[in-house]
C-alpha cells in the first residue's frame, strides 16, 4: 500500500473521530450492558438447563457413539461426508489436515490476501460471498450432524443429498464466484445473487434432509449422581444380576435353584471376610471378569457382558453402604421396598408389585434364563408369558400357581405326581410375609396396574360393631 492511500485512510479516520464519542463512558457503557446481558444468559442457562450428567468414562464400552463438543460438530460431519467421496474419500488427511489447514491459513493471512483498501461491503463482493457460503455451510453441517449418511434400509439417498448440500454445492459455488470475480469481472450485484442462490439451495436441500431424517431415539442413560441414587441404582442392578446366586442380602452360602451351579458353596458376599479384605477396585474387577473357574460369569462390558463401569461402581456402592458396618447408610436409602399397605388397601403394579418383582424375581425371570419361559420384566409379561400361563395368575383364585409357589407349595406335575412341575419360588429363600401378603392381595383383587385402578378397588374395612347402649 502506498503512502498516499495510507494517508487517505488516516485522514478519513480523523474525520470519524471528530464526530465520534469517548471510550469512557460511552463505549464502556454499551460494553457493560452487553456483558450484563451475557452474564444473565449464562446464569439462566446454568440454573435452568444445567450440565447434563454423563456416565463415567469406560474405555471398555466400545458401543458408545462419540460426539464432539457442538462447535466441532461441523468438522465431524464434514469428515463423514468427505469419506463418502469415491477414491478421494480414502485419502483421509486431505479432509483432516489439508482443507482445514488451508481454511485457517487463508483466514490468518487475510490482511495479506485481501489488500485493497476498500472496506464497504459493496466493494467486497467476493470475500463476503465466500464467507457467507462458508458460514451457511458450517451452520447446516452442524444442524445435520446427527443425520446418518446411510439409512437403515441401506438407501444412500440422504447421504447423497447431504454431500450435495455440504460439499458439492458450496465447493462449486466458490469456484464459480472466483471465476466471476477474476475471469468474467462480474458486477457485485450478480455475485451477491449467485452467493444467495447457492446458500438458498444448500438450505433447501439440508431442510429436506432434516425433514426426512429418521428420528433418532433419544438415548437416555440414567446417571445416579447422589450417594442415595447410587445405592438405589446399585440395588436394582444387584437384584437383576446377582440375586439369583447370592440372594437378595448376599447371605447365600450354598447356591440353590440355579442351573449348573446347584449346591455350589460360595462365600457370603455380605460377610466381613469379603467386605473388609476386598477393596472397591478389586470388587469391580471381580464383578467385571467374574470367577469363571468358580462358576461366576463375567458381568462387565469389558468381558462381553452387560454392565458398564458406572453400573458396576453402583453395585459396589450398594454393597458397601448396605452391608459394610463401617459405612453409615444415609437415612433416605433405608426407605421400605414398597409403601406399607393399609387394611383393605389393594396394591398396584406400579407402586407395590414392580419393586418386589424387580428385587426378587427378575434376576431369573428375564430373557435368556432357565425359567419355564416365564418373564417378569413388565406388567404384560407377568400376566401373559410362561409355559403354565393358563394356571399361573388367575384373578381372585387362591390356587393360582403363582400364589402357591411363593407360599412354599410346589406345583406337582399332574402326569408324574412325584415330580415337581414348578418348585417353590424364590428357590433360595422364602419371601417375607409382608411381600407375600402384597402379592396375594394383588392377585386376589384382579391385578390392578396403576395406583388409581387400585384405589378404585379399595374396600374400606368394615366399621367395628359399636355396641348399642
Amino acid at each position, binding site marked *: 500500500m502506498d503512502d498516499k492511500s495510507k494517508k487517505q485512510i488516516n485522514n478519513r479516520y480523523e474525520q470519524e473521530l471528530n464526530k465520534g464519542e469517548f471510550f469512557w463512558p460511552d463505549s464502556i457503557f454499551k460494553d457493560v450492558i452487553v456483558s*450484563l446481558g451475557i*452474564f444473565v444468559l449464562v446464569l439462566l442457562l446454568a440454573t435452568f438447563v444445567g450440565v447434563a450428567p454423563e456416565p463415567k468414562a469406560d474405555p471398555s464400552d466400545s458401543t458408545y457413539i462419540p460426539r464432539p463438543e457442538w462447535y466441532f460438530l461441523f468438522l465431524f460431519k464434514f469428515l463423514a461426508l468427505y469419506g463418502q467421496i469415491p477414491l478421494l474419500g480414502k485419502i483421509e488427511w486431505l479432509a483432516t489436515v489439508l482443507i482445514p489447514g488451508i481454511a485457517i491459513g487463508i483466514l490468518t493471512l487475510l490482511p495479506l490476501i485481501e489488500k485493497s483498501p476498500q472496506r464497504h461491503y459493496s466493494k467486497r463482493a467476493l470475500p463476503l460471498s465466500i464467507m457467507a457460503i462458508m458460514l451457511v455451510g458450517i451452520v447446516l453441517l452442524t444442524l445435520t450432524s446427527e443425520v446418518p449418511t446411510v439409512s437403515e434400509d441401506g438407501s444412500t439417498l440422504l447421504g447423497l443429498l447431504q454431500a450435495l448440500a455440504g460439499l458439492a454445492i458450496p465447493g462449486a459455488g466458490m469456484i464459480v464466484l472466483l471465476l466471476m470475480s477474476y475471469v468474467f469481472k462480474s458486477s457485485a450485484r450478480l455475485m451477491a445473487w449467485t452467493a444467495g442462490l447457492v446458500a438458498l439451495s444448500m438450505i433447501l436441500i439440508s431442510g429436506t434432509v432434516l425433514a426426512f431424517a429418521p428420528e433418532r431415539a433419544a438415548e437416555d442413560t440414567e446417571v445416579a449422581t447422589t450417594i442415595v441414587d447410587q445405592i438405589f441404582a446399585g440395588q436394582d442392578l444387584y437384584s437383576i444380576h446377582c440375586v439369583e446366586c447370592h440372594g437378595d442380602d448376599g447371605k447365600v452360602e450354598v447356591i440353590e435353584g440355579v442351573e449348573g451351579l446347584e449346591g455350589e458353596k460360595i462365600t457370603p458376599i455380605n460377610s466381613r471376610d469379603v467386605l473388609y479384605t476386598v477393596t472397591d477396585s478389586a470388587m469391580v474387577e471381580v464383578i467385571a471378569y467374574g470367577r469363571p473357574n468358580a462358576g461366576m460369569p463375567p458381568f462387565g462390558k469389558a468381558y462381553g457382558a452387560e454392565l458398564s463401569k458406572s453400573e458396576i461402581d453402583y453395585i459396589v456402592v450398594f454393597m458397601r453402604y448396605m452391608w459394610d458396618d463401617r459405612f*453409615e447408610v444415609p437415612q433416605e436409602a433405608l426407605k421400605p421396598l414398597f409403601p406399607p399397605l393399609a387394611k383393605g388397601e389393594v396394591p398396584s403394579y406400579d407402586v407395590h408389585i414392580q419393586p418386589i418383582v424387580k428385587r426378587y424375581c427378575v434376576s431369573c425371570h428375564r430373557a435368556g434364563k432357565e425359567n419355564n419361559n416365564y418373564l417378569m420384566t413388565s406388567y404384560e409379561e407377568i400376566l401373559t408369558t410362561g409355559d403354565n400361563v393358563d394356571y399361573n395368575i388367575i384373578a381372585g383364585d387362591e390356587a393360582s400357581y403363582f400364589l402357591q409357589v411363593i407360599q412354599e407349595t410346589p406345583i406337582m406335575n399332574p402326569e408324574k405326581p412325584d415330580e415337581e412341575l414348578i418348585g417353590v419360588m424364590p428357590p433360595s429363600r422364602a419371601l417375607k410375609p409382608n411381600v407375600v401378603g402384597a402379592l396375594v392381595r394383588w392377585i386376589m383383587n384382579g391385578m390392578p396396574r396403576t395406583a388409581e385402578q387400585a384405589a378404585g378397588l379399595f374396600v374400606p374395612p368394615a366399621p367395628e360393631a359399636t355396641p348399642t347402649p
Partner: protein
Amino acid sequence: MSDSKELSRRDFIKVTTGIVGGAIGLALGLPSISYLIDPALREGGKEAWIPIGRLENMEIGKPYQFSFTRVQVNGWERTSSSFGGYALRNSEDPNDLLILNSRCTHLACTVNWSEQAGAYLCPCHDAKFSPTGEVLDGPPPRPLDSFAEHRLTEDGVIEIFFKAG
C-alpha cells in the same frame, strides 16, 4: 460536566456502569465464597454404637485393648480411619467400666499400655498416663479422653457411643 443539579447523561452512565459491575460482582462473588468455604461448614461424622469386645474377655483391673475402623466420606474420597482404646473394668458390675481413647491428648499419637510401667506410654514425646488416664509425666495438657457412654448388649458385648469429628 454540567453544573445543574440534574443528573447529566455522563453521570448517569457512570453510575449505571458502576451498579451493573457491582451487581455482576455480587452475583458471582457471594456464591463463590460459599462454594469455597463449604467444606469448613460441614458437620462431622455421624454418631454410632460401636462394639468393642465381649465383656467376658475383659479382665477386672487389666486394660483391654480394642480398635475399630470408621469410614468417612470426605468429598468424593472414602477415608477409613482407625480408632482404638482401652477398656478397664473396675468391678464385677458390667457398668463399672472406664473406656479410654488411646489418642494422646498432647499431639494425637497413639498411647500403648505397658505392663512393666503399669502405665500408658506415648511413643512420641514420652508422655505417661496412669491406668485411669491421669497424666503422670510429660507434656499432655489433660488426662486421656474417655468414652463416657457405653452399654452392654444382650449378647454380652460392650458397645461404646462414638461420634467422630
